[in-house]
């Protein structure tokens, strides 16, 4: 299967999930991610899997809860308003320490918003979303190939840490086609799911999948245990890509498809002699703090964060830099995609103002 195929992001991620051993998909139609469900509906019956169109996003995520608790590799996908509906279930899944993969092909918001690409769900994805002390691992791929690779890895990460993993794309990444290879993925080592509700067969004590702990000290103890796991993840799983940063005086930072737009601007700026580079977070949680904290403050004069939002990731960038380098922001929102020239203009203004 190492031959290249031309595929839409949404379909490619669905194929990647099936290849990763996802046997169960529960979803509900919403633009711009519906191709994921359509692909699953077509493929799952042929590949020994289940596709079920739920009555709502709320039901879909709770089906995911049940299937994950039963020990299966399971996924759901949606877009912003649908992800809001899923937050209840996501919180319960996190609270019950269940592994699953949730895809958000982000569109403009708030409310019904629009259907064009956006990144305005960053806070929701990385700061909780649902109630309680919890995190999701959030992957932010910037190409169809990376979407495929990270989808496969998402299932492993979810199983290893027993937690939900979110793939955060946007309408553009979901809708675009690029050549993609479904090369051999080397799975990570996965612990056995001894906790799953598979039926006791009268051979063991019953397993209980649950997020209710009525004694406060019990709940606190559990959350502290989970926090230790989060600490390990922050240490081991944070990822980013650095692009032309060695001599850079200005660092542009962006994730997902916006990073591709910013990269074009960086290239154009380089052609004009401006020393600019880019840091692209690949995991949004854990946020790659070190990439920023370790920037040489003698060399880097400005950081420019570009997002398809009014400025959400920029807060994490500022926290990571701890005020050592001034951080500027440029964003378009509501489904409007920034152009490379707009970003270039911003870079030039910063360069001239040094």
């Amino acid at each position, binding site marked *: 299967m190492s031959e*290249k195929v*031309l595929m839409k992001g949404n379909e490619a991620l669905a194929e990647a999930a099936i290849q990763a051993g996802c046997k169960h998909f529960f979803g509900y139609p919403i*633009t*711009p991610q519906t191709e994921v469900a359509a692909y699953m509906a077509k493929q799952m019956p042929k590949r020994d899997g289940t596709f079920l169109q739920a009555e709502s996003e709320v039901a879909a995520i709770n089906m995911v809860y049940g299937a994950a608790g039963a020990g299966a590799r399971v996924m759901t996908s949606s877009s912003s308003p649908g992800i809001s509906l899923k937050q209840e279930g996501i919180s319960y899944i996190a609270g019950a320490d269940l592994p699953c993969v949730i895809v958000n092909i982000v569109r403009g918001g708030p409310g019904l918003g629009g*259907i064009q690409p956006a990144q305005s769900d960053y806070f929701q994805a990385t700061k909780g979303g649902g109630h309680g002390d919890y995190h999701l691992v959030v992957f932010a791929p910037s190409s169809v190939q990376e979407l495929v690779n990270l989808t496969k890895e998402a299932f492993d990460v979810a199983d290893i840490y027993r937690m939900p993993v979110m793939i955060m794309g946007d*309408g*553009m990444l979901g*809708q*675009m*086609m*690029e*050549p993609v290879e479904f090369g051999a993925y080397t799975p990570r080592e996965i612990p056995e799911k001894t906790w799953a509700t598979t039926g006791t067969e009268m051979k063991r004590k019953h397993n209980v999948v649950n997020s209710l702990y009525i004694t406060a000290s019990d709940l606190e103890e559990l959350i502290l245990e989970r926090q230790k796991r989060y600490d390990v993840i922050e240490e081991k799983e944070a990822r980013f890509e650095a692009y032309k940063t060695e001599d850079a005086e200005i660092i542009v930072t962006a994730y997902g*498809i916006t990073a*591709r*737009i910013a*990269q*074009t601007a960086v*290239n154009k700026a380089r052609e004009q002699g401006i020393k600019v580079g880019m840091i692209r977070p690949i995991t949004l949680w854990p946020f790659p703090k070190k990439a920023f904290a370790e920037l040489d403050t003698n060399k880097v004069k400005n950081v420019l964060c570009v997002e398809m939002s009014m400025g959400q990731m920029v807060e994490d960038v500022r926290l990571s830099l701890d005020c050592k380098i001034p951080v500027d922001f440029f964003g378009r929102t509501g489904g409007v*995609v920034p*152009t*490379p*020239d707009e970003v270039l203009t911003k870079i030039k203004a910063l360069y001239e103002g040094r």
Partner: protein
Amino acid sequence: MTHEILISGFGGQGVLFAGKLLAYAAMLEEKYVSWLPSYGPEMRGGTANCSVIISDEPVSCPLVTNPTVLVAMNAPSLDKFEDSVTKDGKIFTDASLISQEFKRNDTSNFAIPSTKMAEELQASKLSNMVLLGKVVKETSVLPFESIINALKKTVPASKQAMLEINKKALETGFNA
């Protein structure tokens, strides 16, 4: 070398397919390529466009804002995108549907009656392929054969007749 191609028209004119075929051919030629459609509420007859980037280097931004090649299959598309074409870029239009003059004189402009030419082939819906044939002829995007190869791969063997008529439409445009 990077070609930034924007193909635009009414939904149903085969705008997305023309772009997809081009992207597929480029992939077979081992080029870097991206295909990005406009998308909106599903509606037949609405406007549609797609950005195709074909390059010798990895594609960064997949959105075409300043096309080197514009294919405008209806008048609103020409109105909307003509100004955005790069200097020395190339503009292709369907003269059967667009009567207005080109505003740009710093671009190479090609107006062929592609709908009429397709109708003469008894294939009125293949205006997209006629125009694509012309694009291949007038630009260095891809060799003609690679488009035909891509066509063979994208049209299922069971629809051999479709393959033939598409091929004929491409040739008609190429020779126009």
